[in-house]
């Protein structure tokens, strides 16, 4: 497919002509960030890309500030975080923004991912875009995990212990790699220091992959709620001011939620045990990760074998990498796939259920439930998506984005025409 090309920047002023001849940065940015043609029918679920960029910037800025006051040493880390909370000017604010910012980041990324899943945004020609997104997600999880260790509370310490010990499940090299990662025989000062270093590094790697992600987005252009590709310029609007203002509005709404957590419930998403200094001699009654990692934790614990649990947990993310080839349907958007739609919502409930189970003790009915939901999780990707494409009878697609928009807004005649004439070619490779 060939998307609508962006309008070129033509410098008007003498200064811009002079500048463009030397450093054509505006000539690069204008078609990318200003004139970039965006489908006119994007709904508010498409604002989460901008929200996620905001989250990344907030985490990096507040993180750099916190690193100015934090001490990565097992004897001082806990107290240095409290020093930030008590003594540093606005330290409490910056730290609460950072700790809740991680949760907001994951909330936004999950909405972003489920949106991509529902509207088939991972399908050709956006496979690489999707895979880059999964890589960002993995980097985010690694960053968040290491960041959670830094305050050196009980959950920090025992979370790190449990997760690093997962690696020990690997045959032959497991123990060696575990010791290598720890820099010792248990979580200790070397572990804390390397986690701090990597926690500082990874966000910049995320930023790098985000640039690739946006690049890979701008080649085919945005998907949209109909899944029908952009055909004419009429289907699109320039990114600025239409999408920028819509994104800005959605972002401020998101910030209200963010602020509600930071100012009125700053510890509600955390665990009380993390306000107890790490103690290698006392394991908390229930070790739970942060909420955003709970579904994967539930999958890990659903399997009675150590190696099996680890493989299945990584498999649950690994399966996302091959998702573009698992879904056999020729229709992109879930809006035109009645059966997919139902399975999609079941899948959402399965993920929420796994999240709930991840927070419960691994015993009795919880384990059985986790096994059922884990099975359903994998069935969705490995059985439902490949088979649905073969059997599902999809609804007729509109001929174009413009047509679907006009139809919805009262262009009754055209909508009728679309319905009858909509044996439209399935949108996959056009």
């Amino acid at each position, binding site marked *: 497919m060939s998307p609508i090309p962006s309008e070129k920047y033509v410098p008007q002023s003498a200064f811009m002509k002079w500048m463009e001849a030397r450093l054509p940065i505006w000539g690069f940015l204008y078609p990318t960030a200003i004139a970039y043609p965006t489908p*006119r*029918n994007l709904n508010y679920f498409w604002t989460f890309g901008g929200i996620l960029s905001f989250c990344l910037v907030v985490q990096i800025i507040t993180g750099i500030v916190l690193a100015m006051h934090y001490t990565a040493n097992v004897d001082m880390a806990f*107290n240095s975080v*409290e*020093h930030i*909370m*008590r003594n540093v000017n606005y330290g*409490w*604010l910056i730290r*609460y923004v950072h700790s809740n910012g991680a949760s907001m980041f994951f909330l936004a990324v999950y909405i972003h991912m489920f949106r991509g899943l529902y509207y088939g945004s991972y399908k050709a020609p956006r496979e690489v875009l999707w895979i880059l997104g999964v890589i960002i997600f993995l980097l985010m999880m690694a960053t968040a995990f290491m960041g959670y260790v830094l305050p050196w509370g009980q959950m920090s310490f025992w979370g790190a212990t449990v997760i690093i010990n997962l690696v020990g499940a690997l045959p032959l090299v497991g123990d060696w790699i575990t010791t290598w990662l720890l820099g010792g025989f248990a979580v200790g000062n070397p572990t804390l220091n390397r986690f701090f270093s990597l926690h500082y590094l990874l966000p910049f790697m995320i930023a790098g992959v985000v640039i690739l992600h946006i690049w890979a987005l701008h080649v085919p252009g945005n998907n949209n709620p109909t899944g029908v590709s952009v055909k004419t310029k009429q289907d699109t*609007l320039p990114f600025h*001011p*239409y999408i920028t*203002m*819509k994104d*800005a*509005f959605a972002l*401020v*709404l998101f*910030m*209200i939620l963010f*602020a*509600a957590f*930071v*100012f*009125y419930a*700053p*510890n509600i998403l955390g665990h*009380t*045990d993390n*306000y*107890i200094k790490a103690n290698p001699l006392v394991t908390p*009654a229930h070790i739970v990760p942060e909420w955003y990692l709970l579904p994967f934790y539930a999958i890990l614990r659903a399997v009675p074998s150590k190696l099996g649990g680890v493989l299945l947990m990584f498999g649950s993310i690994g399966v996302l990498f091959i998702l573009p080839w698992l879904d056999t349907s020729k229709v992109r958007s879930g809006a035109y796939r009645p*059966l997919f739609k*139902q399975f999609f919502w*079941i899948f959402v*409930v*399965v993920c929420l*259920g796994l999240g*709930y*189970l991840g927070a*419960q*003790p691994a*015993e*009795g*009915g*919880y384990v*059985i*439930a986790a096994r*059922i*939901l884990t099975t*359903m999780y994998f069935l969705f990707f490995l059985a439902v998506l490949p088979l649905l494409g073969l059997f599902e009878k999809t609804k007729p697609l509109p001929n174009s984005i413009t047509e679907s*928009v*006009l139809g919805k*807004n009262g262009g009754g005649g055209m909508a009728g025409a679309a319905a009858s004439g909509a044996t439209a070619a399935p949108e996959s490779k056009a």
Partner: protein
Amino acid sequence: MIKTLRLRALATVLGVALGLGAVGVVHAAGEAEPPIAVDWSFSGPFGRFDRAQLQRGFQVYKESCAACHGMELVAFRNLADPGGPGFTEEQVKVIAADYTIEDGPDDLGDMFERPGEPKDRFPSPFPNENAAAAANGGAVPPDFSVIAKARAGGTDYIYSLMVGYEDEPPAGVDVGDKYYNHYFPGHAIAMAPPLFDEGVEYTDGTPMTVDNYAKDVSAFLMWAAEPKMEERKRIGFQVIIYLILLSALLYFTKRKIWSAIDH
């Protein structure tokens, strides 16, 4: 039709799975009783600390808790900080001077003791954790700096623990040489009941009951754990009002810009 059936089957499985989960919850909750919900002056988005209560709570801490529980992250000067108990700078100097601080080394390399100053932090009653454990039958009395944030239930839990002691454990329960408490996980707590009616001499006329002591010290510990709470809520209110205003403006801006566009 077949697909609908399959869907229903899936939904049933899901329901059963979640149902099992719910059964598990009930089972796991048999441990300790849920803490008593207290109506704190500082709860809610506009909640503020009650200065007099914090001052009384500090007195309870000092006279009934400090012998075993340190507060190593809180400095005496914090007692005069805005949003806290509201002691004056002069009062803080007097309070601080009551404590003995180990300082040094001096010119000869020896540690020495001096009276506390506002810049000092509350000294810990034990030199290290092992000493604390040895002096308390193996149970280390936790530091109180962030205790109100380090326990599920927060101040409700602390209050409940203070008033939750039972002279005799219920029949069939053996707590050994420990004490029975309704709200402590496992019920057997190493700490003897720390508060008694009339045990701390209030000077402001507040009835000197365990119930009041427990409430006051819980409030004080909440402040110790979250000394910036009042500032946080105040700034938060301003931030949220601002964001609502900005979102309204952006909404109208966006609508204006999109007004001629079908979408």
